[in-house]
């Protein structure tokens, strides 16, 4: 569990990136943090594994304050996958990349081999085990970065902009993958602009603007709240956009799922046919 209590954060340069954030993320939750460029999303999640420590306020991970422990020990619980995989990858082969953290955590040789195989299979990367990460495509490098974090099986996974540069099928695979992690009771936090992806996943949504949380609730509720979204530079998902125009037909606005939309519209149509 992560508890954030009135956290302010100021970068050494002087920019106050967080201006009083209070938030609890319980085990097993799936949360999307959204907001405009520079709203403080990445700054906030970097507090979850102690990469950043609050200027004032408290951050507790599983009841331990992040100021009283190290990033290395927090990383065992909280795995962080960066936006740009090139800021994370450095090894000669995919296998070594994944082994690196496992060695640091003191896993045995045998366990390391097993974990690597498991993570590579999970992300369909098995054929690249001996390949240099830099020979792979952008989408594949992103999956290597994800595999290297998953390999030590953290309880909580933070994905910073996981859908950038990913095509439709890769996004669908990522969505199914998150669902799978959820069934294992893992906590998943994504930082994203991708409103259509979030609409398909329908997680808890937190909107940020200028270092503060301006809305926090169920996906369906937040993603159909035009005022809050506009303040965060987010556009309504397309299905929600359509439904804002349909109130004259007696339809509620809060629809984000295409199949729900289809059923509702067919009902209106068939009712009239009778």
């Amino acid at each position, binding site marked *: 569990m992560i508890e954030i209590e009135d956290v302010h954060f100021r970068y050494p340069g002087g920019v106050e990136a967080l201006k009083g954030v209070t938030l609890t993320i319980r085990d097993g939750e799936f949360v999307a943090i959204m907001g405009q460029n520079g709203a403080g999303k990445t700054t906030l999640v970097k507090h979850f594994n102690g990469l950043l420590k609050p200027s004032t306020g408290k951050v507790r991970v599983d009841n331990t304050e992040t100021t009283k422990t190290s990033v290395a020990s927090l990383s065992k619980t909280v795995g962080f996958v960066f936006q740009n995989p090139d800021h994370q990858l450095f090894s000669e082969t995919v296998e070594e990349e994944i082994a690196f953290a496992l060695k640091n955590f003191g896993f045995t040789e045998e366990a390391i081999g097993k974990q690597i195989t498991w993570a590579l299979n999970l992300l369909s990367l098995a054929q690249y085990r001996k390949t240099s990460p830099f020979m792979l495509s952008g989408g594949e490098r992103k999956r290597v970065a994800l595999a290297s974090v998953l390999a030590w099986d953290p309880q909580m996974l933070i994905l910073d902009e996981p859908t950038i540069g990913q095509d439709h099928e890769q996004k669908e695979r990522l969505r199914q993958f998150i669902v799978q992690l959820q069934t294992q009771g893992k906590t998943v936090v994504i930082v994203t602009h991708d409103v259509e992806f979030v609409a398909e996943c329908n997680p808890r949504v937190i909107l940020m603007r200028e270092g503060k949380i301006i809305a926090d609730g169920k996906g369906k509720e937040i993603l159909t709240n035009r005022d809050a979204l506009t303040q965060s530079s987010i556009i309504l998902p397309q299905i929600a956009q*359509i439904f804002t125009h349909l109130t004259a037909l007696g339809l509620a606005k809060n629809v984000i799922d295409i199949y729900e939309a289809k059923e509702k519209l067919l009902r209106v*149509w068939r009712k009239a046919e009778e």
Partner: protein
Amino acid sequence: MVAIETRNLTYTYPGGTKPSISDVSIKIEKGDFVLITGPSGCGKTTLCRCFNGLIPHFYQGELKGEAFLLGKDVTKIQTHELAKNVGLVFQNPENQLFALSIEKDVAFGLENLGFSREEMRKRVDWALNLTGIYDIRERSPHEVSGGQQQRVAIAAVLAMQPEIIVLDEPTSFLDPLSAQKIFEVICELNKNLGITVVLVEHRLDLTAKYANHIIIMDEGKVCSDGETRTILSLEETRLIGVGIPKATLLYNLLTREGMRLGNVTPLSSDEMAELLLEALKDR
């Protein structure tokens, strides 16, 4: 007039075992707004590199077939010559920016073409304003966010006002509202100045409505090429794994159930809402 044409274009990167694009024959008319899409690794970026001669002048490898930009054979004319006619914005802005200030980066291309000081000032300010980075023009392009860097790369190309602009996922780091604003600016340049736009994008929800022409690629080949509304209403297109706009998808789902929504496939939520209101209002 034809802006870009390729005939049976096939290209293999040095050391590559199979071609990245194979047998690509396309024709882009002047004034078109073309969307190129398809799964990652399908050859979209490689194809774009042929448009300004980066392939074969910068990237070695093996090129077969022909490519013409405004009737000029790109294999015979150097990239810097073609740069007067075509501007490219790449996927990763970090690879494109180099100057000490954002303003200098945007001015660089104009300096090289020998524009007068006043003309340069005018064009640079125009491009900085259009992309919303005028206020940060004196900062280094390397200390601003990825989204801002993308704006700088776009401004640098706009300032040149080339006849053809090729943009490879130009707004991936920008928040949706900012991305939409950039696409609207590009769409206006296309409409008002007749600039030909070639846009590589996965996010058709944001971009399909601007395009009159769409090219879909898969495994190095062109698998669909035609009018945007026609192509996006085909079931085959969905099966390739293209992220069809939700408004278009909903239209396809409902018409397949027998609902009559007219024969013009919608590309945006506004168009779809209008069709639904028209069909259901008297009911």
